[in-house]
Structure formats: structure tokens, C-alpha cells
């Protein structure tokens, strides 16, 4: 009985998790080397060569990593400041703290557009207040070169999450007590902050931080609505390669899929190893 149940479970796992992933990977790989596809005539590394020579994948990857690093870096810094800097009346988190989590990426991107574009709310307020006299005086924050719009959107989404997350860690990891012990051992206030509290929170939170980094890396709606035409983040670039402009670019799009997937796979392995090591110690 137990064995049969185990097989059933394994079957479902295989069907719903392993098969789609494996199938998708193999399909993308075959398509990218011309083994599949209506317009592909022969097996060749042409698509791979093209994205290597034109730097399509690397450019997009670096851009995504840049966006994700900055977004996560800023959010973590902000949320640590909030966690350690603001004492709330009760240990229990209030309702309003959770409210931002109800906003999906699509809505945040839409809001960013309405606030920060040159004809958005802020620009209008500054115009009415006489701070700017022309639309072009307002800084470019949407579809801008540096991806500021994308980063701000991600920071707005991630900071509330990390605030709640770090507040939770602060209690479960007994950071306050640790601080107290350090103080009794004669540590200065800033030492406790920089040498004890922040390192403990960061270290314990690392797997979650990396996870969130990967989410931002693969995000789609936000860069789709707030990103400039080029370079673009990975999800946007890949979908564009697959269904816009040139049908002969499809193999390049599929090549980027499996390359991205491999990177994520390695990253996930790293997170889990980290997690397990932590549990063991």
C-alpha cells in the first residue's frame, strides 16, 4: 500500500513538474539548433552563433542582473532600516504593513506610469507649483536608459515584503537578545548594529534574498511596461524574439530560453545547498 502510494506520488511529480520542465528544455534546445521548426532547414549552430556575436543574450542578461541587483540591494537596505529603525507599538504587524503585498506587478507598473512619466501626476504637480516650466524639465523615469522606472517599481514591491520578512527574522532569531548580550559584553551601539544585528539578519535571510533576486531577474510585466526599447530584460527580450519582428529569429529566442533556464538551475542548486548547510550547522 505504502509503496503504491509512493509510486502514485512520484508519478504526479514526474507528470506535473519533471516532464514540462524537461520537455520545455529539450524542445528549446532542439529548436535553437534547427532540429525542429517549420522554417529551420538543417541542424546548425547558427542561432547560437548569432546571439553570441550580436551579444543579444549577454546584453539582456547583464541588464537583468543589473536591475535585479540594484532593486534587491535598495529594498534590503530600506527594509533593514525600517526593521531596525522603527519601533512599532506592538510585536504583531499591523494590517497596513501587508497591504502593498496585494499589488501585482502589472498594477504597480501601471501606477508607476501614471505617477512618474513626464505627463504623470508628479510632473503635473511640479508644473502647477512652478518648479518646472516645461514637460521636458521633468526627469525621464519611465522607459529610461538606466531602467530607473523598473527599479523603483521593484523596490516598491520588494521593500514591504522584506520589512515583514526581517521583522519576522528579528524575532525568531532573537536578534534583540543577541544585541543585549553583546551590550552586556561591552559592545558599542553601532558595533551591535553593524557587527551583530545586520549580519545575523542578512545571513539568515540570504536564501530568501537570492530567491527574490531570481524573481526580479525573470520579471516580465514591469519591464514590459516600463522598460525602454533596448536593452530589455530577459523575459521581454525572449518573448519579443519569439513573436515579433522576424520569424527567422525564433531559434535565437529558444536558445535564450534554455540558457536562462540553466543559469536559474545552477542558482537554485546554490540556494538549496546554502540552505541545507545552514540547517546542518
Amino acid at each position, binding site marked *: 500500500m505504502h509503496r503504491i502510494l509512493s509510486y502514485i*506520488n512520484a508519478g504526479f*511529480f514526474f507528470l506535473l513538474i519533471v516532464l514540462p520542465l524537461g520537455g520545455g528544455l529539450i524542445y*528549446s534546445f532542439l529548436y535553437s539548433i534547427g532540429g525542429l521548426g517549420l522554417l529551420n532547414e538543417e541542424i546548425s549552430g547558427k542561432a547560437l552563433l548569432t546571439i553570441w556575436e550580436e551579444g543579444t543574450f549577454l546584453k539582456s542578461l547583464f541588464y537583468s542582473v543589473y536591475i535585479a541587483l540594484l532593486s534587491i540591494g535598495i529594498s534590503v537596505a530600506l527594509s533593514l532600516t525600517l526593521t531596525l529603525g522603527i519601533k512599532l507599538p506592538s510585536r504583531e504587524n499591523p494590517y*497596513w504593513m501587508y*497591504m502593498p503585498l496585494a499589488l501585482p506587478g502589472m498594477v504597480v507598473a501601471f501606477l508607476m506610469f501614471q505617477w512618474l512619466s513626464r505627463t504623470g501626476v508628479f510632473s503635473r504637480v511640479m*508644473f502647477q507649483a512652478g518648479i518646472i516650466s516645461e514637460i521636458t524639465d521633468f526627469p525621464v523615469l519611465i522607459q529610461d536608459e538606466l531602467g530607473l522606472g523598473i527599479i523603483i517599481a521593484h523596490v516598491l514591491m520588494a521593500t514591504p515584503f522584506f520589512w515583514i520578512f526581517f521583522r519576522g527574522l528579528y524575532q525568531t532569531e532573537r536578534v534583540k537578545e543577541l544585541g543585549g548580550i553583546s551590550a552586556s559584553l561591552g559592545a558599542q551601539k553601532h558595533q551591535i548594529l553593524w557587527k551583530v544585528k545586520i549580519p545575523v539578519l542578512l545571513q539568515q535571510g540570504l536564501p530568501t534574498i537570492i530567491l527574490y533576486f531570481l524573481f526580479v531577474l525573470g520579471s516580465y510585466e514591469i519591464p514590459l511596461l516600463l522598460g525602454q526599447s533596448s536593452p530589455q530584460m530577459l*523575459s521581454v527580450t525572449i*518573448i519579443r524574439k519569439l513573436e515579433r519582428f522576424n520569424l527567422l529569429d525564433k531559434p535565437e529566442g529558444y536558445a535564450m530560453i534554455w540558457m536562462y533556464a540553466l543559469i536559474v538551475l545552477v542558482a537554485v542548486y546554490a540556494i*538549496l545547498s546554502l540552505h541545507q548547510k545552514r540547517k546542518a550547522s
Partner: protein
Amino acid sequence: MKKGPRFFIAIIGLGIAFPFLTLLLFSFMKGWFFPSISPTTWTLDYWIQLFQVEGELLQTSLTSILISIFVAFVSTLLGFFLGKWMATHPWRKWWLLLAYFPFVLSPVILAAGIQFFFIKFGLSGNFLGVLIAQLLIALPYAIIIYNGFWSPSMLDREKLARTLGGTAWQAFWRVSIPLSSGVILVVFFQTFLISWFEYGLTRLIGLGKVKTLTIQVFQFVTETNIFLAALSGVLLVVPPLILLWVNKRFVINQWI
């Protein structure tokens, strides 16, 4: 406590209210031209249209709710057994790795990779296809949470019931289920939200034929109909706000 924190809390509170207020206000506006801050007219039109029987948006919301409930229901159920099976399996680490993979992968890229198979098996452009596709990203999440929940001490408690003379069935029904009722609800509502917020995967697999709220919002944004986009945005954030009100843990949890 002195003035400082209160002041900051007030600022943060305002910042948090701002998105919701913006959405709400825009859904009552008509004609909004630079450099004027207020619209040319305030209107109830969009809201009235919403509640008309033939209203497209209402239909879309129902579709979204239906899809999300279904996805949540199946992933909660299947995930429960899979998560527990995995937690006791010797290869736990590898299963976990495989479960994390689709969870972390960009859903829209996953969709692009598997689209071919969905088309092949007649699962593209219909509800069933979208349900299964969303299940592929919601289920791993469910498994991961359950897996985290079934810590050795939890498993021990269940074992204890067995050694005290209970049957497998009794242990499951009297011990496992009550023990995990909290986590089950959490998984249900969180997978509901994963489905509820999903856009790219739904569009690719549903071909835009299966119209969910996120697809509708995007449609309004591309035709720059900001007022209807705002209204659909309001519809999109209400269910998660209600879930939060009922229980905060439904939206964020500590098992990951």
C-alpha cells in the same frame, strides 16, 4: 515613544495608501490632460457599466476567480500529498531542487518553452490549458511550503500516533490533517494569488482567448485607456486585500 517614529509611520502609511487611492480616483475620471491635475470630468460611468449584466469586466472577473479557485484547490490538494511524500523520501534534496526550479523560473519563459506541447495536446487557447499551465507554477510552490512544514518534529508527532496504536488512516485523519490545517489554508490562498496575479503565462497559453483580469488590465494599458485600466486594477487588488484582512498569513508565510 517620541515624535520621530510616529512621524515616519505616518509617512509610510501615506505611501502605502497612495497606490490604492490612485487606482480608485482614476477609476472615476474622464479626460486627464497635461498639465491639469484634475480630470475634465468625474464620472461613475465605468462603475455603472461594470455592474451591467452584459458587462465584459464583470465576466472577466468571474473567469479569473474561477480559474484561481480551481488552481488553488488542485495545487493545495495535490501539493499536500506530494509535499509529505517528498519530505520522507530519501532523495528529498533532489525533489526539492526540481520543485524550486519552475517556481523560480520566469513563468512567461516557462510558458514559451512548453507552449508547443500545449498546442499539440489541444490545451492552447482554452480554460483547461490555462488551468494546467498555472498549476505548473502553483503546484511547486505548494510542494515547497508543505515540504518546509513537514519538519522532522512534525513527522515525529504523526509517527507517535501510529506507535500509540492508531491505523494509518486514523493517523492521517486525526493527526496529520488537524496538524496541518493552518498550512493548508495558507497554501490555498497563496496559490490562489499566484494564479490571480499571473499574466505572461496566461496570455501565452490562453492566447488571449482566456480573458483574465490581468490580461484585461494590459489590454487597457496598451490602448492607453487609463481609467478602465485603473478600474480593473481595483478589481485586481480587492480579493488579496480581503484575504489579508481575514488572515495575514494567507499572503505571506514563514515556511519558505
